[in-house]
């Protein structure tokens, strides 16, 4: 931690004599007596931007969902109606929602399983040097390019790509073929199957799961695990009865990210996977090629509602203390 630093005082202009400093003094004195006004000045730009521009746009979007497309002209009719919402609750759209939620749930569980060992090792076993390196190893993919990382998997999953090559050279081609022959999750090649899409989602959002778990485990005091051992618990039992329950809020916190990010993504299902739609794609298509902005607006409330429900449950499970 870098200590508080103060620039060398001799560079300060003397309070008296300097006219500019005099004005500065008067202005700051005026504000000092009126902290409310100063606070308002600080808050005004961000509030104008986020409160008016951004939240305003969100409301405009919501408002749009109460308009509807005129079936004859294909133009948006600007009168309030619930027709678009009725359109949302059809079987086909329900399919899209279920498909997306299922994928988000699978990705979340997968990320928790794959990410847990790394988080556990980082929090409880690694020395400071290794820990720093592992931290960087999680941070770099988290912040680096989403598209490039997706592109990497396009290379890997391609029919002529690395996975097929490895399978062919280890005599496991039959296994790959068997996987791809599975009814729903298979497909002609990994790059157009749900298995491939799952792997890509898992890879892209995994760092978001690792960090909260690590943070939660970091807060488990060593004395607690020592006490467990003293009371006769074997390491496996300590892990199941002490560490796992205490890590659970971290898992839930991580799941907020993996779940929400998968729910709203429309690029990965478009690049890897079959032609069946996900929520994000449905929103994108309705507003774009279909030109049905009202339906797109109504659709975009679906992930928001799902996430609001999810967050409420997560709050109950104590996830926010682990963030």
């Amino acid at each position, binding site marked *: 931690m870098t200590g508080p630093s103060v620039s060398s005082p001799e560079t300060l202009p003397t309070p008296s004599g300097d006219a500019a400093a005099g004005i500065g003094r008067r202005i700051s004195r005026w504000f000092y007596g009126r902290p409310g006004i100063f606070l308002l000045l600080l808050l005004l730009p961000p509030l104008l931007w986020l409160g008016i521009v951004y939240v305003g746009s969100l409301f405009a979007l919501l408002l749009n969902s109460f308009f509807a497309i005129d079936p004859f002209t294909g133009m948006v009719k600007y009168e309030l109606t619930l027709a678009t919402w009725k359109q949302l609750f059809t079987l086909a759209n329900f399919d899209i929602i279920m498909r997306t939620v299922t994928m988000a749930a699978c990705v979340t569980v997968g990320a928790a399983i794959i990410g847990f060992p790394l988080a556990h090792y980082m929090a409880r076993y690694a020395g400071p040097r290794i820990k720093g390196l592992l931290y960087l190893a999680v941070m770099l993919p988290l912040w680096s390019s989403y*598209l490039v990382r997706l592109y990497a998997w396009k290379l890997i999953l391609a029919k002529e790509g690395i996975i097929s090559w490895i399978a062919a050279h280890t005599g496991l081609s039959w296994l790959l073929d068997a996987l791809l022959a599975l009814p729903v999750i298979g497909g002609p090649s990994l790059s157009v199957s749900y298995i491939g899409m799952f792997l890509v989602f898992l890879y892209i959002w995994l760092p978001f799961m690792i960090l909260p778990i690590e943070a939660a485990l970091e807060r488990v005091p060593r004395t607690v695990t020592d006490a467990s051992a003293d009371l006769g618990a074997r390491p496996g039992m300590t892990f199941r009865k002490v560490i796992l329950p205490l890590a659970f809020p971290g898992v839930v916190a991580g799941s907020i990210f993996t779940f929400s990010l998968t729910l709203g993504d429309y690029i990965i299902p478009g690049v890897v996977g079959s032609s069946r739609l996900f929520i994000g794609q449905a929103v994108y298509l309705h507003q774009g090629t279909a030109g049905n902005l009202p339906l797109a607006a109504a659709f975009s409330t679906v992930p928001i509602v799902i996430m609001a429900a999810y967050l409420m449950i997560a709050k109950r499970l104590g996830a926010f203390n682990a963030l």
Partner: protein
Amino acid sequence: MRSRRQASARPRASLLLKLGTIFCVLFLHVPMAFIILYAFTTEDKSYVFPPPGLTLKWFAVAWGRQDVWDALTLSVQVALTATVMALILGTLAAAAVSRARFFGREAVSLLVILPIALPGVVTGIALRSAFGLADIPFSFWTIVVGHATFCVVVVYNNAVARLRRTSGSLIEVSMDLGANGFQTFRYVVLPNLATALLAGGMLAFALSFDEVIVTTFTAGQQTTLPIWMLSELVRPRQRPVTNVVAVFVIAVTFIPILTAYWATRSSAFAEGGGK
């Protein structure tokens, strides 16, 4: 069990845990290595593995591509502008939230986090429909508005974390010693905040440079580098050039990330987390 007790305070990890850790690290990093390998392949029609031969010529080809340069220029300009705006707005919001308790303080935090908490597709379509309603044509500035909106949070998070750890008595001391508000800001607050702002700005740049979901809604016909990459992903035309650009993007985004890590080492890098 007993031998573990005798060892130093840090227990030893089981083999299974070590293997799990190694697997996870490899899973996170090996795919990137393949991108670098493919930038040198001689094969330009498919993603065949192993590459039939290695060559450097695609770097020269990519260098000569004007569309790549145009996209890169636009992306850098947008990222720089959005970062500056995010720095201003994020610092102001952080200063307000950390200096006083006021009605609606929680709401301000929520407001700042909202653009990344909501799915990108929602932010994108909301801004697009707002631009449509207000008859604003797509331009450089519509992209910047979108990017700055979700970049504010990274700056805000870093600045709030730092301000929380900066003692308020430092400011009072400065005032007691006769510095006015501006001088206190210039000589006391800013030096303390500098590395946090550097980290926040770097991450905001990385975030904006890489953003594609909101951009597809606010760019109109303009092509940023991520949009260029996306069109190549959906309909590959020049695979080797895309490979080279991908390597370049990895290199460019690693610099700000490592700088941010260095600037906030051992402190609040995690608080910038969460795209």
